[in-house]
């Protein structure tokens, strides 16, 4: 069909003759220009994004908690032909990503490795390739779990770490570990921590004096295991297997025990992000919580006395590790093992120590030297500091004279190893002297003491009947009065 002359004429003129037409056009032009500029920026970013990779690239999937950027920088500096591409996601999403797409990572960090182990997705590491991992150098659990845990629990422990019974091949290299119970504010709870000494019981969690000021971590496995530990210790219930791997009936029994506590409104908050529980405790809204060791440290930094409790029933042991994916790039195997092992070296251990996480292989000279005798003994053997606590207060809190005259019970709850032992990080020479009778001792005491009172381990396991754990936990939470 031919276009008539009229049609052509109309097409050439704008249909809307408006004085403001120009402004509108101009405005559209500006908008279009801005959009084009932005698009160009985006395209430029995208095009420059894949950096040239002449070196070997290791893909790390985890969290800076295990492998901080400073650690990566140091690793790349000392291994010039290797580059680490780190993808950091939320602590709780790491496992999902690792399991859902095992070919997208070469090395990963983990706190719950059971699914990966059972699906046989982990590459084995011969023990020789992890030279720090030796008898007498590593925390004893790793090499002799059967000495510390009941038989079946020890079996679960070994399954997660060793590919074989002879313990010659590792399934991952543990990096940090610790012992964990609960945190409390001594301004409200009338207890204190004095090193190798029990302070309170797990049942403080349902003491009605603290109603509405108690928080639990939002995970079924964690809580049910702790309650099972309590019930087992006080012989209120018997369990057929490890308390961290209950049968469905046992889970239900433990949940029934916990139900009245939830229904009474005793517990008002469930945390999953560390920052939130610190916020709640350091603002004194929560006085007692099942939470990680550094929570008390971060409360102290905010000027709130806090302790990690040495409960009668014993803390749990946990460790985290770096693992290699079987479906990862085989070309970077050696480099990835190197990186896994690098976590045990001083650079990264210095960061872990800030949160009082213990190295899985602490008995090496470089660590002892850098820590100095006072810190090393305080950290691992529960020995006292060389200065008494009231003097230490002046050192740690020079602009807070109100802290200098507090009772020692509260002063010890304000002790900050990061400041008192700062030579470890700054490189200054350590203090000399002898442990002072009124010196500070670390919460939960020495490793030897903890070996004695610890009856179970938490990470990186997951129970066999995890679906029951999860659904029962949901049920409990749903029974809280709104």
């Amino acid at each position, binding site marked *: 069909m031919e276009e008539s002359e009229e049609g052509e004429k109309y097409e050439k003129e704008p249909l809307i003759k408006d004085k403001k037409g120009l402004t509108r056009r101009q405005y559209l032009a500006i908008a279009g220009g801005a959009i084009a500029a932005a698009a160009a920026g985006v395209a430029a970013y995208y095009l420059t994004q894949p950096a040239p990779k002449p070196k070997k690239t290791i893909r790390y999937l985890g969290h800076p908690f295990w492998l901080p950027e400073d650690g990566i920088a140091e690793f790349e500096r000392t291994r010039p032909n290797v580059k680490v591409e780190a993808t950091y996601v939320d602590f709780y999403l790491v496992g999902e990503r690792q399991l859902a797409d095992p070919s997208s990572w070469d090395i990963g960090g983990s706190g719950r490795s059971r699914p990966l182990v059972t699906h046989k997705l982990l590459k084995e590491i011969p023990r020789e390739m992890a030279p720090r991992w030796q008898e007498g150098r590593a925390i004893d659990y790793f090499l002799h779990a059967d000495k510390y845990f009941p038989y079946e629990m020890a079996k679960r422990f070994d399954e997660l770490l060793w590919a074989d019974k002879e313990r010659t091949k590792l399934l991952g290299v543990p990096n940090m570990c610790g012992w964990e119970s609960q945190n409390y504010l001594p301004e409200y709870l009338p207890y204190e921590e004095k090193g190798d000494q029990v302070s309170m019981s797990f049942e403080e969690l349902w003491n009605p004096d603290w109603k509405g000021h108690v928080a639990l971590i939002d995970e079924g496995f964690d809580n049910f295991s702790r309650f099972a530990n309590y019930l087992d210790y006080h012989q209120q219930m018997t369990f057929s297997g490890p308390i961290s791997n209950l049968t469905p009936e046992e889970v239900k029994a433990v949940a029934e025990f916990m139900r009245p506590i939830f229904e009474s409104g005793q517990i008002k908050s469930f945390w999953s992000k*560390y920052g939130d529980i610190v916020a709640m405790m350091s603002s004194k809204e929560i006085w007692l919580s099942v939470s990680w060791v550094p929570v008390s440290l971060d409360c102290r930094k905010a000027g709130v006395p806090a302790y990690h409790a040495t409960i009668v029933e014993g803390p749990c042991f946990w460790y985290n590790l770096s693992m290699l994916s079987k479906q990862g790039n085989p070309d970077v195997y050696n480099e990835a093992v190197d990186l896994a092992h690098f976590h045990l070296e001083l650079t990264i251990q210095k960061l872990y120590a800030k949160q009082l996480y213990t190295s899985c292989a602490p008995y090496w000279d470089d660590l002892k030297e850098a820590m100095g005798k006072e810190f090393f003994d305080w950290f691992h053997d529960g020995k006292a500091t060389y200065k008494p606590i009231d003097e230490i207060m002046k050192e740690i809190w020079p602009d807070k004279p109100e802290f200098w005259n507090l009772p020692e019970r509260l002063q010890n709850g304000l002790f900050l190893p990061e400041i008192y032992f700062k030579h470890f990080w700054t490189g200054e020479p350590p203090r000399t002297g002898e442990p002072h009778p009124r010196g500070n001792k670390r919460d939960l005491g020495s490793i030897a003491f903890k070996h004695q009172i610890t009856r179970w381990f938490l990470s990186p396991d997951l129970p066999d009947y995890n679906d029951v754990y999860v659904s029962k936990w949901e049920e409990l939470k749903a029974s809280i009065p709104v």
Partner: protein
Amino acid sequence: MKILDNLLKIFVIVFIAFIYLPAFLVILLSFEKSSSIALPITGFTLDWYIKKPVGYETPAFISLYYDHRFWDALRNSVYVSFATALLTGLLVTACALALRHRVRGRDVLFYVLLLGFIVPGVMMGLGNTFLYSMLGLEKTFWSVVLINVAYIVPFGLILMMARFDPDLMEYEQAASALKAGPLNVFRTITLPLIRWEVISATIFGFLLSWGELIRTQFMLKGTGTLSVFIYTQLSVYPLTPKWYAAGTLISVIAFIGLAIFAFILSRGPRSR
């Protein structure tokens, strides 16, 4: 009536104050001396903004200026959000325009497009991860953008469809009856009339993808966006006034950026 009018205006002011109350506290507490994130204020300091780090601090204790991870994440957020906003604006306009006509199976198509924001984030992330795993694909910047776009386009779509001028199609038909080509029609009639909707959809796209966490985390590679960075940090490190400083900085930048944007917008002709 005057009383009612004034009451309403007061209400607006009160509500804005309410919205700004936490923001105000964020700004105030970013100067707090101790590492506590709650009132009372014990002292004022600029440390959380510009104190030189000593070494081995966790990001929660490194001042804003020296925390290059923060700046990397911020830059990523800007890129991702811009890209998402642009794509959202384009797609939403296209789909909304198309769905006006009696396209066959229109209802079904509409709801298919809506699925993106009904599927829970965790499942979307997981499903996409499985897909990438099955196809052996590596994740890139565009993986993040696309998953955000799929989530945000339905918002924009509904926004646009709720506001289309009912006479729009008549104008367009009139114009084509007058032998204007489709491109001309679009340029001179449609676009100016739906300008506000498109802009709103684009802005919404930007805002929503800025705070988007869960889907992004499944699809990202390397350094993440700002919200992922903060969320990841807070999952194992404490909240300190440093993060308030970050919030303050972002507010200030946003304030200035939006002020400029609003200024440009208000120069254009008004639609009633």
